[in-house]
């Protein structure tokens, strides 16, 4: 395993295969911590972590906060509403003010792509991206990769489909980057209006037919329709989407016997997947959530250990 040298985690683009593997290996050790009776280690004692969530979140926010607490760091939460942002302060000013209270790391989620970069350029504190617009959600992709590796034993050579609203999905973009770098063959599948033009350049195949796509896949990752980002009419109706791209028991008959169904959450039952699939034997949705804490512990541990920005 290589030594970690980065101060921030902004996306997966710049990370080498070895760096991705270092995070996944480190997360493996942290998973055991969460299974103990005493779920806490003193590794980040005395460090202060601020989570700055300027977009709604339950899983990611809770997961990061638990991860920080299990490493003995002190955490505070800030959100957009009720903060000084609503009084006209810019986000950089706000972050600098937070940093002035001797904060070591800021976890940021924002509706606009690039905000974590802007903060990283302006702060001495470490910055971890918890999702920026439609661009990147590195820790989600890492926890998905961790779950695949844990369940399937490898990522290299696996056939993986990402299905749904690819256009608005930061989870899809980060997963494409990470999974292809670790050697998976990734296919994106969805209605043509929700597949970004030129996505092939990221090294993926494109499909518009889920019945055909699902046949030979080891892993099928379903995405939610991001209605909050869909400002035009991309679909005739939700019902039609569910019929064509929703995964239910019938559609799973086309799939491999050991197919694994993933979803980053929140799920819309009856749309991208049926209740019996979400709760069924193929689903690892809750394992993803469990693994999220371990992966985020690894990210916080590694980034907080690197003193100066080298990247």
């Amino acid at each position, binding site marked *: 395993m290589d030594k970690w040298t980065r101060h921030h985690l902004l996306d997966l683009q710049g990370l080498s295969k070895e760096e991705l593997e270092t995070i996944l290996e480190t997360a493996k050790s942290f998973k055991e911590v969460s299974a*103990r*009776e005493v779920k*806490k280690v*003193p590794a980040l004692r005395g460090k202060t972590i601020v989570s700055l969530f300027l977009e709604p979140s339950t899983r990611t926010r809770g997961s990061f906060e638990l991860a920080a607490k299990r490493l003995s760091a002190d955490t505070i939460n800030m959100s957009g509403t009720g903060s000084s942002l609503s009084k006209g302060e810019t986000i950089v000013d706000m972050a600098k003010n937070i940093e002035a209270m001797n904060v070591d790391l800021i976890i940021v989620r924002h509706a606009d792509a690039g905000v974590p970069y802007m903060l990283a350029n302006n702060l001495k504190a470490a910055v971890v991206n918890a999702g920026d617009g439609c661009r990147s959600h590195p820790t989600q992709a890492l926890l998905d990769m961790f779950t695949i590796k844990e369940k399937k034993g490898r990522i290299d050579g696996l056939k993986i489909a990402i299905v749904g609203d690819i256009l608005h999905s930061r989870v899809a973009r980060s997963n494409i980057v990470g999974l292809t770098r670790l050697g998976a063959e990734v296919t994106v599948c969805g209605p043509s209006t929700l597949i970004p033009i030129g996505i092939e350049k990221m090294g993926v195949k494109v499909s518009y037919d889920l019945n055909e796509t699902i046949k030979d896949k080891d892993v099928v990752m379903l995405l939610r329709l991001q209605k909050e980002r869909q400002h035009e009419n991309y679909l005739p109706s939700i019902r039609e989407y569910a019929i064509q791209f929703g995964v239910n028991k019938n559609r799973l008959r086309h799939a491999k016997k050991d197919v694994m169904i993933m979803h980053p959450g929140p799920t819309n039952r009856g749309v991208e997947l049926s209740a019996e699939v979400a709760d069924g034997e193929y689903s690892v949705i809750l394992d993803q959530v469990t693994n999220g804490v371990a992966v985020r512990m690894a990210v916080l541990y590694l980034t907080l250990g690197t003193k100066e920005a080298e990247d």
Partner: protein
Amino acid sequence: MAKPKQIMDAEGVNRALTRIAHEILEKNKGTAELCLVGIRTRGAFLALRLKECIKNIEKTEIPVGILDITLYRDDLTLASSQPIVHETTIPFDITDKNLVLIDDVLFTGRTIRAALDAITDFGRPGQIQLAVLIDRGHRELPIRADYVGKNIPTAEDESVKVMLSETDDQEDKVVVKKVKKDG
């Protein structure tokens, strides 16, 4: 730089471990409530070997755990990048057990301090004892070993290295050599 001096060979390591196994059994009056926990990396291999020694003597299997103390180190804030964390596996309840902690070299005592903290997070053993292959002195904390393979007087600028066939790709041996700074 001086040539490394060998102070123990494979047979020596083996004899020391066999003697420690006997001492552990004598002090604990058998294997009831006994368990071993080795500190990564070399302590873990020594623990597995001691388990085999004890099996040969008493014909019983005792539980063995492996402990990674990285997250409990007292120098985490000093390093320029985080040390690599490995898995801890203690697949049994340590509460009320007579737990023998095992490491290769006892030096400052800081590793053992971290290990004691880590073990406390897993439960409350009846007793914690310490077995080491080499005690080289220069303690910085009030810690001593219950079982010692060999005591070696060293200078602070010397390093003591235990090589084991499981991880070092060569026959077991213990060597001492001078280094510029730090062990």
